[in-house]
């Protein structure tokens, strides 16, 4: 089903660079980076991470609390509460941490004595993101928590699109959320892909990623529904592509053919050509492999002159939240008419041969692309547009 476009009627964001849209834009303008050693839990790993200054707790798993902060902003903007009984409202959210039984304090206690308080298990059982959000607002519609590693947020939005096209629901709340946790902190460190300094996406001297946390949520709906309820929007989701590398558990296919396939599929759905894309919000984790692969694909598909950036210099790599957060950033770029510097970048990597935005750049065209790559070889791409 090509050529369909779905209005974005609400957005919400929380990350280390801001607890809402206004704070985020200020961080982008002031080039603020909040990376430092983790303080949320004890750790011997000194590498910088990007923590959220979360002011409200609903006593759930932290990931759900983060998600609810972003969902609230999006639901308020889209005025969904006024109409929730009239429409089928689906919820599709990506995550990694909230999908796992991974509380180290519970397990340490259990390992020591064979007994442990079940509180954290109960919190986990009550924190399936799609289920909890749907219940919180009493929505009636499909629900799905996506566990596709680092492309979960992007894929959750893609699933929302599929639901709308197949008439499974009328409106979808979708995106991603994740919290900082010792499991990925230790895991990425052991994989040798974590940097001991602030990350430098696409830079010649990049040493790896920094972890982050947060949530990015958008509300999308059928065009006729948004018109019917007087929620006209100038911003749309136009296409989604998803492919698998079938190559390696953790490394991307070096020729980028998986990512290319996903991007081409999204372009096909949006019925546009590569030259119609005005900028790309890249996955840009600052690892050697990811940035090299993405750079190669951007060069091959878009030529040497495409404006692109990684926003992970502002937020860290937020894992399951990344696709949701970056969808919001992409829409903001179209809305505000500018994209920030790809912070952390200084020196061009000749093996990539492209450089991201060094400073704030005006957005001139109509369409923008957001890409995500994940463990297991998933590649996802979303296309957004403005009128």
């Amino acid at each position, binding site marked *: 089903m090509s050529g369909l476009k779905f209005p974005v009627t609400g957005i919400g964001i929380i990350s280390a660079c801001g607890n809402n849209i206004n704070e985020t834009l200020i961080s982008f303008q002031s080039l603020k980076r909040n990376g430092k050693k983790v303080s949320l839990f004890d750790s011997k790993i000194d590498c910088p991470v990007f923590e959220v200054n979360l002011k409200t707790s609903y006593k759930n798993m932290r990931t759900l609390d983060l998600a609810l902060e972003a969902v609230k902003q999006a639901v308020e903007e889209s005025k969904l509460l006024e109409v929730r009984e009239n429409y089928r409202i689906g919820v599709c959210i990506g995550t990694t941490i909230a999908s796992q039984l991974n509380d180290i304090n519970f397990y340490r206690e259990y390992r020591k004595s064979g007994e442990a308080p079940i509180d954290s298990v109960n919190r986990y059982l009550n924190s399936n993101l799609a289920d909890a959000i749907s219940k919180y607002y009493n929505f009636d519609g499909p629900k799905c928590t996506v566990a596709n590693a680092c492309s979960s947020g992007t894929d959750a939005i893609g699933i929302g699109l599929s639901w709308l096209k197949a008439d499974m629901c009328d409106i979808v709340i979708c995106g991603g959320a994740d919290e900082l946790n010792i499991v990925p902190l230790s895991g990425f460190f*052991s*994989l*040798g892909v974590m940097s001991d300094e602030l990350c430098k996406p696409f830079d010649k001297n990049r040493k790896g990623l920094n972890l982050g946390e947060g949530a990015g949520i958008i509300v999308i709906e059928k065009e006729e529904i948004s018109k019917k309820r007087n929620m006209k929007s100038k911003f749309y989701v136009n296409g989604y592509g998803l492919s698998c590398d079938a190559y*390696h*558990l*953790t*490394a991307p296919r070096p020729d980028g053919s998986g990512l290319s396939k996903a991007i081409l599929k999204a372009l096909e759905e949006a019925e546009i050509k590569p030259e119609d894309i005005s900028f790309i919000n890249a996955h840009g984790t600052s690892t050697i492999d990811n940035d090299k692969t993405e750079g190669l694909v951007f060069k091959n598909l878009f030529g040497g002159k495409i404006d692109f950036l990684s926003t992970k210099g502002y937020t860290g790599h937020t894992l399951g939240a990344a696709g949701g957060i970056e969808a919001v950033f992409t829409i903001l770029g179209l809305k505000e008419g500018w994209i920030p510097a790809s912070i952390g970048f200084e020196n061009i990597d000749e093996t990539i041969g492209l450089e991201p935005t060094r400073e704030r750049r005006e957005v001139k065209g109509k369409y923008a692309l957001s890409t995500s790559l994940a463990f297991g070889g998933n590649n996802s791409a979303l296309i957004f547009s403005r009128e």
Partner: protein
Amino acid sequence: MSSTNEEKLKEIKTKLKELLVSHLNLTNIKPSEIKDDEILFGQGLGLDSLDAVEVVVLLQRHFGVKVKDMNEGQKIFYSIDTLARYILENIDNK
């Protein structure tokens, strides 16, 4: 090389072969069948990038040896021989 060092190197190689087989789940080969000059990555044992970082962790855990610069990795991890020698050098330097 002194005979003590030669003995140590032999012990390291034996332990290394056992660790590689057990921790990397190399089910189609026994430790005693791995030659000292067996190439570890690509050909030979056919290990990959995920195995490489696993080996880094094994060196830390079982020999107390850190690989400081992964760019040196290709030389260090070339064969059982080169890896064992690296371990021996760095155990002595502690």
